[in-house]
């Protein structure tokens, strides 16, 4: 008896249409004269907050002024020297133990100007749930790491893994995050803070 896999693949093979070439993805896509300004504009429009900061000293000063940081009882930071963390993620065994984290300050690898998405991964983050379970999320992205659009973003991902291979060549979780969690499921009214973080603050670091 043939397996379901064989039956499905056989049916697909029998029914597949005539061959049709894959399109060339390289085009003259829209680019932005000032990617950082575009990123900040779009992030603001999707309900996030962005700050351009000179250096880590500047970043820490701005951070201290944020009400969400001042009011936080539990803070996680995975960026050495950034913020005043009081929860050490490497000592936390279960993701469930992070349920009461107020603020998480985490690395963003790069950002996309077009749609204010920040690419994050669990490569150096032991419990990936922290990006989604904290009440307020703070991401730090190097100013030099803002690409124009999603095409450039995937081009970057194709060579940012180990030995310049695809980042997806090994098991990894990665996500584009654009703004705070939101819903419009009750009468199309936009509500910020659905299940995930109630706010997203992105610091664009450096010049």
């Amino acid at each position, binding site marked *: 008896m043939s397996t379901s896999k064989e039956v499905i693949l056989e049916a697909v093979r029998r029914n597949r249409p005539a061959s049709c070439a894959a399109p060339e*993805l390289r085009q003259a896509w829209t680019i932005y004269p000032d990617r950082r300004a575009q990123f900040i504009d779009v992030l603001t429009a999707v309900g996030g907050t962005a700050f351009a900061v000179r250096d880590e000293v500047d970043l820490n000063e701005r951070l201290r002024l944020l009400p969400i940081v001042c009011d936080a009882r539990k803070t996680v930071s995975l960026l050495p020297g950034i913020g005043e963390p009081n929860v050490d993620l490497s000592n936390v065994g279960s993701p469930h133990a992070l349920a009461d984290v107020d603020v998480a300050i985490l690395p963003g690898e790069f950002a996309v100007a077009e*749609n204010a998405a920040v690419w994050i991964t669990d490569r150096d983050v032991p419990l990936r749930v922290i990006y989604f379970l904290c009440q307020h999320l703070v991401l730090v992205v190097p100013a030099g790491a803002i690409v124009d659009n999603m095409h450039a973003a995937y081009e970057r991902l194709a060579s940012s893994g180990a030995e310049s291979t695809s980042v997806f060549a090994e098991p990894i*979780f990665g996500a584009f995050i654009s703004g705070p969690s939101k819903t419009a499921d009750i009468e199309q009214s936009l509500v910020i803070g659905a299940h995930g973080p109630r706010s997203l603050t992105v610091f664009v670091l450096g010049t």
Partner: protein
Amino acid sequence: MKAHPTNHATAAAAFVADLDRARWHDAALWAARGRRDRAARSVPEWETLRDMASHIKLHTMSRLDEYLEQFESNATRLGAQVHWARDAAEHNRIVRDILQRHGVKRVVKSKSMLTEECGLNPHLEAQGIEVTDTDLGEWIVQLRHEHPSHIVTPAIHIKKEEVGQLFHERLGTMAGASDPPYLAEAARQHLRSVFLAADAGITGVNFAIAETGGVVVCTNEGNADLGVSLPKLHIACMGIEKLVPRAADLGVFLRLLARSATGQPITTYTSHFHGPMRGGELHIVILDNGRSELLGSTDFRRSLNCIRCGACFNTCPVYRRSGGHSYGVTVAGPIGSIINAAANPREHKSLPSACSLCGSCSDVCPVKIDLHQQLFISRRQLALAGLVPRTKRWALKLTAAVLKRPWLYRMAGGAARTALRMLPRWLVYSRWNAWGRRRELPGAPRESFRELNRKSKTRRGGSQTRRGVRLSGETRP
């Protein structure tokens, strides 16, 4: 497929009986169409993207078997376990077996039209497994023991006062409260405890990448990510048509999806799962359930391009005014009318007629499915298969007989114009005249178009030119 065999027109009559609600529903969806338009206009290369997306899908379909195998081999290499399901029953059995093997009692699910299609929830509940739909809209319909009426905004048919009443009864929110932020906060608090208590998470899949073996899930609420990052077990359920060849193809689709769906530049979360969470398990269930048959249909295979953005729902004048439940299927709207009538013509024969052939759906579709053409072809096939109701068949035969005979056509036209003027109102607006329901017929003109045209020619001195036919009496819809 979960089918409640219904006649669309009959079911829609119940929806439009509440005129205020029907108007409110219409306006809510039209606003979504407006947001989509603004987002599309903000991207200069929008049409190039649509064209490209359509071609990527057609290319993928032409080698779907190879891409499915490539996907399985890469996903397996990354540590995921891939399962194949021919139909809904096999899909449900696979998911249930995985859950039972892990002793799972509580599952959180993010929005997945595929698991709706398979009727997974009742199947698992019958085995004593508690399933919670965690997308806010889907949770609301789950609490009301309903099904989503829209693939992107499942609770679009429900008013905030009704959500307020529901939450008052189920969550103990204040009586009479209907403020969306207050209600959403109550849901957040409640569902947080459900997430933390879950033993497994189930998600749908927006895209599966053959080249890398990963699956991509798009949400705004963050529910999918919470649901599969707390428990160690993640089951992702996908149809065979979700494949794309390369990760770079997502650059095209992700620029189109959220803009078409809600007018956002991208969904808040676009999560790429490559292999299981550290110390966890990732199972990917690949479902056929009639899709491979659809692939073989030259008329309808392009409906497999669909990325489930819902833009065709939001723009459709029939969907907006009749509501998703009147279709009686999991995926309603123009795209649902095509795939359901193709899969099961006898049961869903009324759906392709829930369409005015205005073509707006084809204009907004981000992957360029020729929706209105397919709906038209579908109607013809249903007629050829003898699945058109007798009254309609007779009416069409009569129309054909009249149109074949110019003298009869002229006579019938004259008779109708006179009759409309002379007949008493109760007769013209009787139950036999569907066109007179809920609207006033336009006044019958004294002369036919032919007569007007002849007169106009005479006035111009018998000129034989064909130009200049005046259409001043024309009414625009």
